[in-house]
């Protein structure tokens, strides 16, 4: 009975492996061509030095000089400043957004809430609007010329808000991101809250625990995995900040520069045809984000075990 099974199992396993790879092949091929090859290509390109002749009469030449672009990057005050700006953005915006998302999820989950479906949907609806389209919409709400917010404030209280001023503009961008993503994060946390066993909450209540106490000591610890996940994704999201500031840039009156964020800076270099330098910036950004993701991944996995 067992012998024939054993004899055929090797062949069956080989056949199964072949079908598995056939199923994987189309995806794997495109993944290779659209992810790994471009990344490798960018690394190679970043090792070359682009030289334009003084008058721009002859074609620019490329020479192999691996340290050139990366050295230039270290001394590029605009690029360094853009990195610092994105870090500041993440440190402030991510806790505010996730705190708000957690707070709203707990409120909707609480026994006092009515119309739970409506509030969930209201918070989630901004996520349905593409990032750049919501940035276009907010640009009208911010613009000194068109802002209905400032119109109303001017009429009621006699002052306006300088959304595009140098000190405000980063937080105007943060507001657009918070508006768009709070509901998404809230839904993830809320779904996780639904898995907290009713019995545990009922037992705590019978012991006289207040709703705040239950939220703090039972619900929040139990949704920790969801909080960690949303934190990781939000931090990665901050590092790739591009759409919102890029849309506001031409309307900001100069407070958003062409190198406001690292990605904007790299894109501007590519648009100016400084391909090797743009490649170096892209490689540095990708490496930083990759290290960031993997570090968080490791830390959170270790914390769990």
């Amino acid at each position, binding site marked *: 009975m067992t012998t024939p099974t054993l004899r055929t199992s090797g062949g069956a396993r080989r056949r199964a*492996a072949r079908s598995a790879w056939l199923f994987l092949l189309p995806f794997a091929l495109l993944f290779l061509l659209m992810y790994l090859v471009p990344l490798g290509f960018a690394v190679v390109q970043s090792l070359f030095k682009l030289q334009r002749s003084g008058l721009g009469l002859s074609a620019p030449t490329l020479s192999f000089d691996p340290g050139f672009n990366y050295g230039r990057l270290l001394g590029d005050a605009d690029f360094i400043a853009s990195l610092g700006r994105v870090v500041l953005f993440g440190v402030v915006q991510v806790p505010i957004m996730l705190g708000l998302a957690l707070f709203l999820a707990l409120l909707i989950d609480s026994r006092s809430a009515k119309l739970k479906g409506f509030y969930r949907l209201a918070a989630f609806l901004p996520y349905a609007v593409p990032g750049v389209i919501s940035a276009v*919409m907010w640009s009208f709400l911010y613009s000194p010329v068109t802002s209905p917010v400032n119109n109303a404030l001017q009429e009621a209280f006699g002052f306006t808000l300088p959304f595009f001023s140098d000190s405000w503009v980063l937080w105007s961008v943060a507001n657009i991101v918070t508006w768009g993503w709070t509901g998404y994060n809230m839904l993830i946390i809320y779904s996780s809250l639904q898995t907290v066993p009713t019995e545990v909450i009922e037992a705590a209540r019978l012991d006289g625990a207040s709703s705040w106490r239950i939220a703090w000591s039972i619900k929040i610890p139990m949704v920790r995995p969801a909080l960690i996940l*949303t934190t990781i994704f939000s931090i990665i999201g901050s590092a790739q900040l591009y759409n919102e500031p890029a849309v506001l840039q031409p309307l900001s009156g100069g407070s958003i520069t062409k190198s406001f964020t690292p990605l904007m800076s790299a894109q501007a270099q590519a648009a100016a045809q400084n391909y090797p330098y743009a490649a170096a910036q892209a490689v540095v950004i990708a490496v930083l984000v990759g290290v960031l993701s993997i570090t968080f991944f490791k830390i959170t996995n270790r914390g769990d075990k």
Partner: protein
Amino acid sequence: MSSTLTEPTPTPVPAASPRSRASARRRLDPNRPSGVSRWGVIAILTLSAVYFLLPLWWMVMASIKPNGRQFEEPGLWFNGFDFFGNVKALLEINDGIFLRWMANSIAYAGISAVIGTLLSAMAGYALAKYRFRGRGLAFGVILAAVLIPKVMFTLPLFLMFNAVGLLNNPLAVILPSVVSPFGVYLARVFAAQSVPDEVIEAARIDGASEGKIFFRLGVPMMAPALVTIFLFQFVEVWNNYLLPLMVLNDTSMQPVTVGLVGWAGSNGQQAPAGLIIVGAFLSVIPLVVAFLSLQRFWRAGLTAGAIK
């Protein structure tokens, strides 16, 4: 409880909230919330709903006002109605370029999502249902790609397409958009959940080929999950901005996101501000309809991606 996106264990999506029993008990509950805390919760929730909905409400109001009144008081209330006049004026700009952009968006997102869903389903099914050498490595690479955002690959893609002469070609948008590591991840979770090994074994004994088993048995069983994957990918491609911005210079090839941002950045040179809002509103409608009518598919994707 594992916190992260490592090996997905099949967790069935909960059918009904166990919390619904609590509402039945509420009437008997001695320490139910006081009136103050109840009204406090409702007040805060209402405030949050105002924050999320007011900008959208403003956009709707501005879109239906006669052109030119968009930025007059009252900003948040009705002031005449000429929505259809606005749409007509919008479609006349530059020989109807707006419609062209919408059609481009639908084509890029539709084609990429259909092909992408099929590729993701095949790859996810293979990872969930076969044991083979390299499986762990393949899944590890896909997970890493889920964690590193696609935008990071956009600039390298641009440099590569520039070198091989594929700029200003719709393929430069579609080819990268077909690849969705997150789709493969979801397909893997769903295939493990919804396609029983016994069914596959039975079909093999009946002599069905592996391909036939996948298309005749696997695909129908994974169908709801495939809708979820399709939706996520469609929306992702529809929302994409940086890639089409960089690889498509020709205005007539651009999707609606790139087109509208171009208008908005022109400070009224290419289109009046009032009509840009109408365009933004129209471009959002298909997505909002998709979100509202297919809510349960979204939730399935969010739950599978986030919670285990």
